[in-house]
C-alpha cells in the first residue's frame, strides 16, 4: 500500500487544509502519523515581514512532488501514505505555505519520511519566495541552485550564517 496526494493551491482559490492532509494519510494500520506545517512568520533576519509571495512553475513542481513521493515510497517501503501541498500567490502572516504529512505503521519511518520530503520540496522544487516588509520593500529570498545535482540537505537555511556559508560553498 503506497499512496500519495500532491497539490498546488493558489491562495486566490483557497487555503491548504492540514486536517484534510492528516485524514488522507491516516489508516487503521498506521500507528505513526507526522505532519509538517510551514507558516508565514512576521519576522525574518530582523526585518518585520507583512507577507510572502510564492511564485511557482506549477507543472514542473507537480512532477517533482510526484518524484519526491516515489523516492520516499522506495526508501520507506510499501506501507506509506504521503500528502504534499504547497501554496502559491501572496500569503499573509500565519497563512499556510506548505503542508507535508506522512503515515506509516511506526513513528520512526513517519518522522524520517516527513523530514525527507520536506527537505526535498524546499530544496529542489521550482518555487520562489518573495518577502514583503513593513517598510514597503520586497526581496526575493536566496535559494538553492538547481544547477548542482549532488548537493544534499539536512540543515535549515533560515540561519543567516549558514545561508552565507551555503552561498559561498554553492555559488
Amino acid at each position, binding site marked *: 500500500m503506497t499512496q500519495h496526494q500532491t497539490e498546488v493551491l493558489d491562495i486566490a482559490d483557497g487555503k491548504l487544509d492540514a486536517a484534510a492532509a492528516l485524514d488522507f494519510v491516516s489508516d487503521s494500520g498506521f500507528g505513526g502519523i507526522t505532519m509538517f506545517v510551514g507558516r508565514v512568520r512576521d519576522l525574518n533576519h530582523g526585518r518585520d515581514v507583512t507577507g510572502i509571495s510564492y511564485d511557482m*512553475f506549477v507543472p514542473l513542481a507537480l512532477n517533482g512532488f510526484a518524484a519526491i513521493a516515489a523516492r520516499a515510497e522506495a526508501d520507506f517501503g510499501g506501507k506509506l501514505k504521503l500528502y504534499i501541498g504547497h501554496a502559491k500567490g501572496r500569503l499573509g502572516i500565519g497563512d499556510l505555505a506548505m503542508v507535508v504529512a506522512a503515515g506509516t505503521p511506526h513513528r520512526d519511518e513517519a518522522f524520517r519520511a516527513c523530514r525527507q520530503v520536506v527537505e526535498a520540496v524546499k530544496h529542489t522544487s521550482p518555487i520562489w519566495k518573495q518577502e514583503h516588509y513593513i517598510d514597503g520593500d520586497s526581496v526575493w529570498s536566496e*535559494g538553492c541552485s538547481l544547477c548542482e545535482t549532488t548537493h544534499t540537505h539536512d540543515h535549515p537555511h533560515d540561519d543567516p550564517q549558514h545561508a552565507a556559508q551555503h552561498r559561498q560553498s554553492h555559488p
Partner: protein
Amino acid sequence: MRVALSLFGAFRDYQPTAQLTLDVADGARVADLREAVAAYGQAHWPTFQPALLARSAFASATCVLRDGDGIPADGQMAILPPVSGG
C-alpha cells in the same frame, strides 16, 4: 529555432511580462540558450546580474535540463533561479 522562455522569481523583476522569446540556431544546446539570455540581459535589463543567471537552471515543463542537453523541439523553456520553497 525560436525559444519561448518563461521567467520566474527574480527574473520577473527584469521582465515584468515574465515571457521572453529568443532565436537560437537549430540544434542549439541549453548552453547556447544561456549565452543568448546573457546577451539579451546585458542589452535590455539595466539591473541584470550575470551571477544570477550563472546559478540558474533551464527546464522544460517536465524536467531540469543541463547545459549539454538539446533544446526541446517545441521550444518551450523556463529559467529557474535558485529555488526557495517552503
